[in-house]
């Protein structure tokens, strides 16, 4: 890490970050006192309003990849960084139009609930839990991998000091476990809301500041960016980052279809009292996420325009936003922005932990192992134990994956979600004939294909070494077992999963009561009749 990045004051950074931790811990503790039932632990008693949940969804969705990754990608590669944010935003329309409300009406806590409605419970729940855990693991790794760069910035522990960084990751991971154990979904939601507000206000202030510096003239900002960038006006054209068009189309497909298959996003739809509130949540999330990406566009080009040429490079691009903050507002703004970025990682990790633990405890333990005979009390206990296990895995994974490219790992999580979850969900919600065989084919088919293609992709091995650094852009150095030509598997694995689901359905047997079960599910999905109600008193007034 170069000397110029050692900016800011550790004490100030720690104080700001400590304040965030303290406030959220108090809230989480208070939330934890009212967490008793499974509905409390997994779905916060379904008592959040649409707007609250919408802010929390934005908090869950705007991960370190969005904040640091996209601003940095725009700062270095211009237009191609912007392409990422468009995919991330448009994807929400899939969730709004096709998934959110119907899911809210049919499920209780997990994606497995929706599938179990009219299929053989145990195999589909096991499949849904498997894909939930795999997607969450990819996403978790991405977040923890990004923590390293931030620790270097926030605490000035250099990237070379693996032990020092590892210790910090352990502390952070432990903190997350405490959040989830004590606060359940309600506490986690509060953390998401606070983090989302901080993140949105922080980026808004920075964007306004950047525009103020150039006299509110966007044209002026872009012209300065072109003058300072080594690429000139090419930063306003596609092609700097994605040189292979097919690879880019594959990524775009995964981004747009991945969001509505991300388990930690799907689970948030259950924290509101009814489908109309679920719709309002998504609408709020779309506005917040969209406005946020417009801010990152200003921040990315702003970093190019205002920082001395060469400050932000491909190697340190994740730090573009914090470095811009230092340039604008000195140590204080840097402290605030790096604390926000860190809070971002914490909140997303907490959301992933509760999703993974709910999926294991509710689908695997309560319904597959205990065949529905588990008491709610023991189910919550298993969920808490799972959260600890997932937390430990996240800590270990974070230490191992430290330094990997964050946005790239997140894109892989999107590809797996789009391949394994979305086709199955859409078929299940809209296709009367869809059956257990079809569901298993599309989940396992999509999951296995996407993961295997990732392992065999140039993203993992075999990219030529960069002559300047001697390092390959692949995850593994010095080996080459790549066989699949694309970085992102979406273009193959997503259509294949749709196809497998259809073929499996045609080949699989039809249960005698299939029509009756589909009638029940469809009527519930579209009308909300008999949907899970809120269990907290204030929700009743909210719902009306």
């Amino acid at each position, binding site marked *: 890490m170069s000397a110029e990045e050692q900016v800011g004051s550790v004490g100030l950074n720690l104080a700001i970050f400590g304040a965030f931790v303290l406030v959220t811990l108090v809230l989480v503790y208070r939330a934890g006192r009212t967490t008793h039932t499974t509905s409390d632990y997994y779905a916060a008693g379904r008592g959040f309003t649409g707007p609250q949940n919408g802010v929390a969804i934005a908090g869950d969705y705007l991960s370190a990849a969005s904040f640091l990754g996209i601003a940095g990608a725009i700062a270095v590669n211009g*237009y191609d960084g*912007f*392409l990422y944010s*468009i*995919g991330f*935003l*448009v994807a*929400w*329309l*899939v969730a*709004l*139009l*096709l998934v959110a409300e119907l899911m809210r009406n049919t499920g209780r806590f997990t994606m497995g609930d929706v599938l179990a*409605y009219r299929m053989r*419970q145990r195999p589909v729940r096991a499949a849904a839990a498997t894909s939930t855990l795999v997607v969450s693991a990819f996403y978790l790794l991405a977040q923890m991998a990004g923590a390293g760069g931030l620790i270097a910035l926030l605490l000035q522990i250099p990237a070379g000091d693996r032990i020092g960084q590892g210790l910090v990751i352990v502390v952070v991971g432990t903190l997350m476990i405490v959040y989830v154990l004590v606060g359940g979904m309600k506490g986690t939601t509060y953390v998401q809301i606070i983090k989302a507000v901080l993140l949105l206000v922080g980026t808004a202030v920075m964007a306004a500041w950047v525009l103020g510096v150039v006299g509110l003239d966007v*044209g002026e900002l*872009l*012209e300065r960016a072109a003058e300072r960038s080594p690429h000139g*006006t*090419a930063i*306003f*054209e*596609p*092609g700097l980052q*994605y040189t292979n*068009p*097919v690879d*880019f*189309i594959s990524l*775009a497909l995964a981004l*747009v279809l991945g969001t509505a298959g991300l388990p930690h996003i799907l689970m948030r739809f259950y924290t509101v009292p009814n489908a*109309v509130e679920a*719709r309002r949540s998504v*609408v709020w999330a*779309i*506005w917040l996420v*969209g406005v946020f*990406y*417009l801010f990152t566009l200003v921040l990315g080009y702003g970093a190019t325009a205002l920082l001395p040429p060469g400050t932000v490079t491909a190697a340190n691009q994740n730090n573009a936003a914090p470095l811009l903050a230092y340039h604008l507002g000195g140590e204080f703004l840097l402290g605030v922005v790096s604390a926000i970025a860190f809070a971002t990682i914490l909140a997303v990790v907490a959301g992933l932990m509760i999703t993974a633990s709910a999926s294991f405890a509710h689908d695997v333990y309560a*319904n597959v192992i205990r*065949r*529905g005979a588990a008491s709610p009390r023991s189910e919550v206990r298993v969920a808490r134990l799972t959260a600890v296990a997932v937390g430990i895995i996240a800590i270990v994974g974070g230490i191992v994956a430290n330094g990997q490219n964050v946005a790239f790992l997140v894109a892989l999580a999107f590809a797996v979600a789009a391949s394994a979850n979305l086709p199955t969900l859409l078929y299940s919600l*809209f296709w009367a004939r869809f059956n257990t065989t079809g569901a298993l084919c599309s989940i396992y088919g999509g999951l296995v294909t996407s993961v295997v293609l990732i392992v065999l992709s140039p993203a993992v091995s075999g990219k030529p070494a960069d002559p300047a650094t001697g390092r390959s852009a692949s995850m593994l150095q010095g080996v080459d077992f790549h066989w699949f030509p694309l970085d992102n598997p979406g273009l193959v694995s997503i259509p294949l999963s749709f196809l497998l689901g259809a073929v499996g359905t045609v080949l699989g047997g039809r249960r005698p*009561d299939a*029509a*009756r*079960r589909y*009638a*029940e599910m*469809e*009527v*519930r999905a*579209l*009308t*909300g*009749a*008999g*949907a*899970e*109600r809120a269990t907290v008193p204030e929700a009743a007034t909210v719902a009306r």
Partner: protein
Amino acid sequence: MQATDWDFGEVKPPSAHEQATLHEQVQAGPEFVELRRRLRGWVFPMSAAFLLWYFAYVVLASYARELMATPVSGVITVGLLVGLAQFVSTFALTAAYVRFAARRLDPLAAQIRCSMEDHR
């Protein structure tokens, strides 16, 4: 647990059959058929439209880079404007869906839901 908390496991409580029959009746009824027609008649074509528009954009950014690099005014290119247009269309479709759902879906869904609850 509440009355709505049904078991969908392998073993069905005796009342489940009666309940399901009601669901089948509702599913076949004219109100529900109309609700499904309205929902699918809106969300399917709109989903197809926004996906087509998004992929048109992706393909343009991949294969028509010269066009996307054409300056419109100063340094602002066609690509930047088309990208921002994706934001505008996403916001517009969101607002349109909310209007549509509130006017055409919610009242009918509530009507069916209420008539089912009366039935119990």
